[in-house]
């Protein structure tokens, strides 16, 4: 309860996502220099405690079967929480009218991507944000070089160099450096930056590089006749289907420019070319292939090209709260039914 209260109050200063990460998604919560259990550690302890009670200390009698089922229901709820915490993904699918999008981009998580373009597809080797800790080394059998992470900052500003670049500083680092800024509570206002060192490519390409989110011209490196683009970006989640936007509509409140609702007419496109027409509006998400697609935003550029933004959620633990609630109800009901004769005798 203390953790819940702190985390909720902290949302005002830190922002929703940062507070959630610090208080509820952490194993250790540092209060000044003192380590205290974070949300995950607390829930893990409750789960372990409940599991031990169920496995080692529960009496397996017919009369106690209701209690056992109720315990299982509670464990099921916590298990759903584990699945949601580790496997849920959510992000934005941005698609222009007349175009088809085959992926969505995570709202929060970063990835360092090595991208090779082949036949209209991006072949990507991605290292997750958790692997980008300063001092760490990244390598993979498919690329003949090593990446040493020198610095990752979640919010930066780009500034011109005040000192001449060394021979080992390549790409953008020849003219610019970045400076870390405090993380903005409004996550969309942050721009992450990464400094890293490449080795194993020869004198021409080996050296320090700097990349950041939303870079206009990505950093490329050559490996023989291959060219790899290196990007720091929000994590990409490929979809097994495409969303083709036929039309997007925005309705305004009468006499104002305030949007009342957005609606997207889309085709769900399969790799074999087959299509199914669907409508996604603000209160009518599209559910397909384990994903839920919500209408969230609309945009129109200066050329009149309309764009629809859909929030995509994939959550394998989505049904667990419903299932566990039913199991808990059944458990309590059985317990009550089994104890009716005892109650009657007492009366």
């Amino acid at each position, binding site marked *: 309860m203390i953790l819940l209260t702190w985390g909720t109050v902290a949302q005002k200063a830190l922002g929703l996502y940062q507070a959630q990460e610090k208080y509820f998604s952490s194993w250790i919560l540092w209060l000044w220099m003192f380590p205290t259990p974070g949300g995950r550690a607390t829930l893990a302890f409750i789960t*372990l405690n409940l*599991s*031990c009670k169920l*496995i*080692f200390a529960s009496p397996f009698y017919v009369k106690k079967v209701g209690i056992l089922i109720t315990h299982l229901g509670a464990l099921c709820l916590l298990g759903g929480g*584990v699945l949601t915490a*580790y496997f849920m993904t959510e992000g934005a699918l941005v*698609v*222009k009218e*007349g*175009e*088809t*999008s*085959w*992926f969505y981009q995570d709202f929060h998580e970063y990835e360092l991507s090595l991208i090779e*373009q082949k*036949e*209209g*597809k*991006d*072949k*990507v*080797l*991605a*290292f*997750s944000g*958790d*692997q980008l800790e300063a001092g760490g080394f*990244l390598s*993979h059998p*498919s690329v003949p070089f090593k990446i040493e992470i020198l610095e990752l900052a979640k919010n930066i*500003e*780009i*500034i*011109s*160099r005040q000192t*001449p670049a060394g021979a080992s500083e*390549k*790409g*953008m680092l020849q*003219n*610019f450096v970045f400076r870390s800024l405090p993380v903005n509570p409004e996550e969309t206002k942050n721009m992450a930056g990464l400094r890293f060192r490449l080795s194993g490519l020869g004198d021409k390409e080996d050296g320090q590089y700097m990349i950041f989110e*939303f*870079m*206009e*011209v990505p*950093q*490329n*490196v*050559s490996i023989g006749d291959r*060219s790899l683009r290196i990007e720091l970006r929000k994590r*990409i989640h*490929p979809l097994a289907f*495409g969303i083709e936007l036929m039309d997007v509509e925005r309705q305004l409140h009468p006499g104002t420019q305030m949007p009342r609702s957005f609606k997207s007419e889309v085709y769900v496109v399969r790799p074999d070319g087959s299509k199914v027409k669907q409508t996604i509006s603000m209160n009518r998400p599209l559910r397909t292939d384990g994903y839920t697609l919500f209408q969230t935003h609309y945009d129109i550029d200066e050329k009149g090209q309309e764009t629809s933004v859909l929030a995509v959620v994939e959550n394998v633990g989505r049904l667990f709260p419903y299932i566990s609630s039913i199991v808990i109800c059944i458990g309590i009901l059985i317990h009550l039914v089994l104890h009716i004769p005892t109650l009657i005798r007492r009366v």
Partner: protein
Amino acid sequence: MTALRTLFLLSTLTFLWGCGEEAREYEVRENTSQNAPAKAAEPKGHVHRPYDFDLPKEWKEKDSTSGMRLLSFSDSTGSLDGSLVVLGKQASDLPSNINRWREQIGLSKISDEECLKSLGEGMSKLGNFKTLHIKGPEGQGILAGVFLLGEKVLFAKMMGPSAQTSTEEGRFIAFCTSLRAHTH
């Protein structure tokens, strides 16, 4: 029975502990348009540039378009290194850029006001642009054109012997003036 229960609990914990992530490989299609030709149809080695330009016939385009460069080129003698680079608006501070270029050719920094006074003006289909020609004490010179394009900033730059930058100044201004948005 207790040993069996303990084994069950430990194996579950071990499984959960092992749920980590390594590098992942995936393929993703680029956003495809029914109206635009597929990028795959573009010839090998083609670099998509958001800008068109008329490169003076005396100049040579170089292959090196990797890294931050949209275009690399040189003058007829090959002594000047030219580049066309687009960056985000974070890089648009003119005095910082001018002082950085000054340092590259051995000149000292000057005040922001002096920096802005040293700039010339030009006009292209991308809008007004700033021009600069500086010469250093060691015989090096820089020609620069800076286009402030809202969210982006486009830099055209030539660097090399100052005698040669003086010779190429007219062509450089003509090149900057020819820059325009790419059309299919």
